């Protein structure tokens, strides 16, 4: 009995040391303003916005602007994601305004309101893979092709899953006021699309916003919601996400190979997660994390 108690004590001590080492490594990768994310978020939005006059005044052909707009929408989420975790500027610091600016502005091409994105994303962190409480759980799918179909189905008008399930998630956490943000964003988005179409710019509206938004949404959901959590059956700090090797590489998968680092330490900026992962790897192995090199 005494031996068992001693073993438990040693295990607890080991656990504490491991946690301390993990925290020390993580802290070394936090702090400072991630200027790259700031320039990315605001620059990406500026490029997308500039496409409109360039195309409308026939300076750039719409077929050439379409892939750029699609790339803009794909790239627009992550800077806001940094802001959602207060990485650019915490409350009460001098860069807080910049944090909120990037958060609000960068996801405009995606028609995703910052407050709704932030609140639902923080719920995803708190309840990852919980079928009842994770707002992103409905992105679960059997494989990559099935995921693309699920993403498309979730965006249908009668669906209450995916982004359309955020309404219920916001109500559940007592923030029905934020649902209005989504309604206003949608109203303005569809209003602009219709106005452009009746003004003779329907193809431009389709190829600079409507279709890029659909492609971008699927791409973002694929690499941010589905792939890092697949098969999304486990909960718990060290098992609810994974390190994985993407067939398209880390940049094309938007840094999500190291998603496990983000879930363990959300204050580490995206660009520092690979370095943090390399240092944390022995600890993650000791914790029994899902480190899938193949």
């Amino acid at each position, binding site marked *: 009995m005494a031996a068992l108690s001693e073993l438990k004590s040693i295990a607890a001590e080991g656990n504490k040391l491991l946690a301390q080492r993990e925290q020390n490594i993580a802290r070394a990768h936090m702090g400072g303003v991630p200027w790259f994310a700031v320039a990315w978020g605001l620059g990406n939005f500026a490029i997308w916005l500039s496409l409109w006059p360039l195309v409308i005044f026939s300076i750039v052909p719409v077929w050439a602007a379409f892939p750029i707009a699609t790339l803009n929408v794909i790239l627009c989420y992550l800077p806001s994601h940094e802001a959602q975790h207060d990485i650019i500027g915490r409350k009460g610091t001098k860069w807080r305004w910049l944090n909120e600016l990037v958060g609000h502005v960068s996801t405009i091409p995606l028609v995703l309101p910052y407050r709704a994105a932030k609140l639902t994303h923080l719920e995803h962190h708190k309840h990852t893979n919980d079928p009842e409480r994770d707002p992103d759980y409905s992105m679960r799918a059997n494989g990559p092709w099935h995921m693309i179909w699920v993403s*498309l*189905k979730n965006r*249908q*008008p*009668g*669906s209450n899953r995916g982004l359309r399930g955020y309404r219920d998630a916001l109500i559940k956490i007592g923030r029905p006021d934020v649902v*209005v943000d989504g*309604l*206003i964003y*949608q*109203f303005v988005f*569809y209003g602009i*699309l*219709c106005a452009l*179409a*009746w003004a*003779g*710019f*329907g*193809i431009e*509206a*389709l190829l600079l916003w409507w279709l890029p938004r659909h492609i971008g949404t699927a791409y973002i959901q694929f690499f941010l919601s589905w792939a890092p959590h697949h098969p999304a059956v486990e909960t718990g700090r060290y098992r609810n996400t994974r390190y994985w090797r993407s067939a398209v590489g880390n940049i094309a998968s938007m840094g999500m190979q190291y998603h496990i680092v983000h879930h363990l330490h959300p204050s580490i900026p995206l660009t520092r997660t690979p370095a943090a992962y390399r240092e944390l790897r022995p600890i993650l192995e000791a914790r029994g994390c899902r480190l899938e090199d193949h």
Partner: protein
Amino acid sequence: MLLQILKTGFRFGPLLFGLLFIPPATAQILGALDWAPPLGLSPLAAGFALGGLWGLYAQIRGSWVSWTP
């Protein structure tokens, strides 16, 4: 009041999209491709036929692309 208008608008979202966006966009696409709509319809009328029927389908079924939402 504004909220109620927004909510009502979204209740009929697919139908409104089918009637307010698809027709002029279709007319522009047909013009760009230099395609004449069948049955002697004007490009805009063809757009209304397409958008109206597809929007109605999406309104009733809850999906633009499948039988169930």
